[in-house]
């Protein structure tokens, strides 16, 4: 009897589904997008090679997985190369209703994104899928990130069918952390992914992490829980006046060993070595714990505890003279270099670092990777909840700070290679929740190679060398930064006018114009930044 039941069940599965790449191909609820064949069909229907060459003018790399190429991504992923016939076949198998219209949303207001949406609409129409697209505005978070009350069965609280978004990761775990139960607004629970997310976050062993990344990539690839579209590159642009003198290039959105103190620039007509750049503040300097390396102050005016290379792999100390992680991964000890001072001449102490660790725990918009590391420190929870005056896991002995973790964190060194301590004395009486609102951020006193000299908000900011900087006084005599940003049309105007000797952009359409300038050199940098489609598999009101 038992045997007969098993046979019957097996036959039923065979009759109602097609196994594709190990995936049981059938919908799991009334939403047809919960059928992997439909999701695979969408992948096959979009010709990313052509889109990358045309819309992105070759400045995008079609993606076959979430992770960028490298040792942590398996090489056997299905790239879902453009195959409209295969897409139609899968849709027919899945019984796709050609009258159903997919609602696709996005939150980038640039022309390239709109063009991409139009292209996707045409590609999907070619295989029999109707699609509309719309730009999300206002409170985008509530429209894309709200997890269902029932994260297993839904219904979803977001109403779209597909979301065009991105993952810009500092740590590779960030690509997958939302797959943990209760983290996803659009995908039903996947028990194995929960285990794997815990696995890559619970070890410092790169081999074990790699196993986890491989398996997660394969699961996502086979089931098409997301459709990776393309890897975005970052472009560093420099005028020919500027010379890095051999310093490396890297991911400019974060902190790395770019050796700016050794850079030189041809003097201007007055004989002064002045470098022009962008990312000056419009109203206030941003706390350097949120967007870790983006603003002029983060890059030039603050040092980090440790230092990483251009690929953001920790390679040594910056403010740290020595540091170590215990064998069990639960204790991080750092000793700051002797004689370090803030730009106002006061000493940088272990107490400053300890205060900064605590403040960053409470500051609500600390970068998620940094936050995740700090949250695992002993006593962090009680401190954040206001039940303790200090973090019990952080102790100071002169210039040495010892940090004890309650659980292993895989990114301790990465976090401290991006973490810039702040001068505690400047924040007396300031609740870290409102750290950004402190007067300090009108003209911060930093620790980096350049100190902030003159600030005219939304007009310009100047920085001058910090005499006696511990890695050597910078050679550039003055930096003049304008409040222009990578998505800003003024970036090109300033670059053309010779008012941008250094900067970066991820806007592919700006790259040909920058490259066309005789006095400008553009360096493409591979960064972990993947643009993708999230697919809403939960039942929702528009189904």
């Amino acid at each position, binding site marked *: 009897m038992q045997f007969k039941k098993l046979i019957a069940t097996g036959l039923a599965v065979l009759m109602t589904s097609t196994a594709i790449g190990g995936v049981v191909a059938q919908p799991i609820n009334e939403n047809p997008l919960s059928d992997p064949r439909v999701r695979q069909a969408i992948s096959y229907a979009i010709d990313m090679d052509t889109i990358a060459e045309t819309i992105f003018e070759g400045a995008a790399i079609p993606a076959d997985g979430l992770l960028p190429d490298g040792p942590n991504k398996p090489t056997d992923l299905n790239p879902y190369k453009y195959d409209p016939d295969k897409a139609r076949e899968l849709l027919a198998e899945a019984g796709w209703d050609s009258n159903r219209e997919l609602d696709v949303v996005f*939150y980038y207001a640039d022309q390239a994104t709109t063009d991409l949406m139009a292209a996707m609409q045409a590609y999907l129409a070619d295989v029999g899928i109707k699609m509309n697209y719309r730009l*999300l*505005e*206002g*409170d*985008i*978070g*509530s*429209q*894309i*990130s709200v997890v269902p009350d029932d994260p297993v069965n839904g219904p979803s609280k977001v109403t779209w069918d597909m979301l065009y*978004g*991105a*993952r*810009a990761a500092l740590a590779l775990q*960030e690509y997958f*952390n*939302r797959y943990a139960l209760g*983290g996803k*607004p659009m995908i039903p629970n996947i028990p194995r992914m929960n285990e794997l997310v815990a696995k890559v976050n619970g070890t410092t062993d790169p081999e074990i992490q790699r196993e986890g990344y491989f398996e997660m990539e394969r699961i996502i690839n086979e089931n098409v829980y997301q459709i990776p579209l393309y890897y975005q590159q970052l472009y560093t642009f420099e005028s020919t006046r500027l010379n890095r003198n051999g310093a490396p290039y890297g991911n400019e959105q974060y902190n790395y060993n770019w050796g700016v103190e050794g850079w030189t620039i041809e003097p201007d007509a007055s004989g002064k070595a002045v470098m022009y750049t962008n990312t000056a503040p*419009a*109203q*206030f300097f941003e706390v350097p714990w*949120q*967007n870790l390396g983006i603003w002029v102050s983060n890059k030039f005016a603050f040092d980090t505890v440790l230092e990483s290379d251009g690929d953001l792999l920790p390679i040594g100390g910056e403010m740290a003279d020595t540091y170590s992680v215990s064998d069990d991964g639960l204790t991080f000890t750092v000793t700051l270099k002797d004689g370090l001072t803030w730009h106002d001449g006061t000493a940088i102490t272990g107490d400053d670092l300890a205060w900064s660790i605590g403040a960053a725990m409470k500051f*609500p*918009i600390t*970068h*998620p990777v940094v*936050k995740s590391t700090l949250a695992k420190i002993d006593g962090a929870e009680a401190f954040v909840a206001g039940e303790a005056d200090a973090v019990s896991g952080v102790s100071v002995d002169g210039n040495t700070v010892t940090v004890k973790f309650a659980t292993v964190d895989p990114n301790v060194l990465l976090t401290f290679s991006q973490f810039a301590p702040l001068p505690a004395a400047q924040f007396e009486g300031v*609740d870290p*929740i*409102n750290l*950004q*609102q*402190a*007067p300090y*951020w*009108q003209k911060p006193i930093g620790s980096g190679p350049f100190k902030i000299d*003159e600030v*005219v*908000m*939304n*007009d*310009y900011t*100047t920085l001058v060398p910090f005499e006696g900087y511990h890695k050597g006084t910078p050679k550039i005599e*003055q930096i*003049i930064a*304008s*409040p*222009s940003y990578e998505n800003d049309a*003024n970036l090109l*105007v*300033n670059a*053309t*006018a010779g*008012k941008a000797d250094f900067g970066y952009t991820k806007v592919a359409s700006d790259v040909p114009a920058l490259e066309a300038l005789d006095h400008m050199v553009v360096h493409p940098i591979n960064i972990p930044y993947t643009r993708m489609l999230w697919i809403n598999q939960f039942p929702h009101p528009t189904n």
Partner: protein
Amino acid sequence: MLTYIIRRILILIPMAFVICFLVYLGLELTPGDAVSHMISPDMLGSMDPERLEALRQSLGLGQPFYVRFWSWFTNLIQGNFGYSTNGGVPIANIIATRLPATLELAAIALLFSTVIGCILGVVSALKRGSATDSALTVVGMLGVSIPEFFFGLVAILIFGLNLGWLPVGGRSMPGYLTFWDRVPHLVMPSLVLSIMLTAGVMRYARSSMLDALSRDFIKTARSKGLPEWRVNVLHGFRVALTPVVVLIGFRLPVLIGGSVIIEQVFQWPGIGIEFISAVRSQDYPVVMPIALLSVMAVLIASLIVDILTALIDPRVRLGE
């Protein structure tokens, strides 16, 4: 007239209150809040919702909007403008640094457009039907029709990038000490801003002048043997000036918030661009005083126009 002016000033207060309430309500109806704009959407999904909620509460965003509005209003009438939600900067500082930049731009644009617009309008009227009139009419139509950002970009391309005569943006540079140091930065944005204004004033002045020149008192003046320039300027232009003054008066407040495109194109750190930025980031404490400023500018300009009209044109009697 004094009674009229006092009455108008008293009416300003409830009008400003109601308009500010409507602005506040409009902001409230916009999805999201200041906190949701502090974090990029790409990063938002990884943030801790409880900490974000704590931030909302600490910034006072958890209270009902009418409580926040009343709190803002009562602070305002006590002279407390408050602080920016996003950066904690005193609003008074923001206005004190940004408003002069915008007024500087607006004043020069208004002065230039008024003088040049009136001269060209009068010349066009006096040479009605001539090639000069036709040429000025075409130029005027182009000035009114083509968006100012286009003129801005063309000006940057020609004078900033190709010829290198003028800076492409910004209001000042390190080492500038006086107004005259900043003049090269001011030239392009103020002239571009004045193009559309000049064209408008010119068209208005021309029509008004033609209307005045057709009046009987002009014929009377000519019949009395007055010199032609005196007929045109003292008799014709004075009457023609009334509608032009109304136009210019009503443009003054528009210039405060209306130069935002020019501020954007020329990277000019004015109040208009600050206003747009604050609206986008739902920074109510910044939006409201600037909105109030604009409201008051419109209402006061309206009052000034009435008074000036009465002074220029003796036939106008205020309050009757």
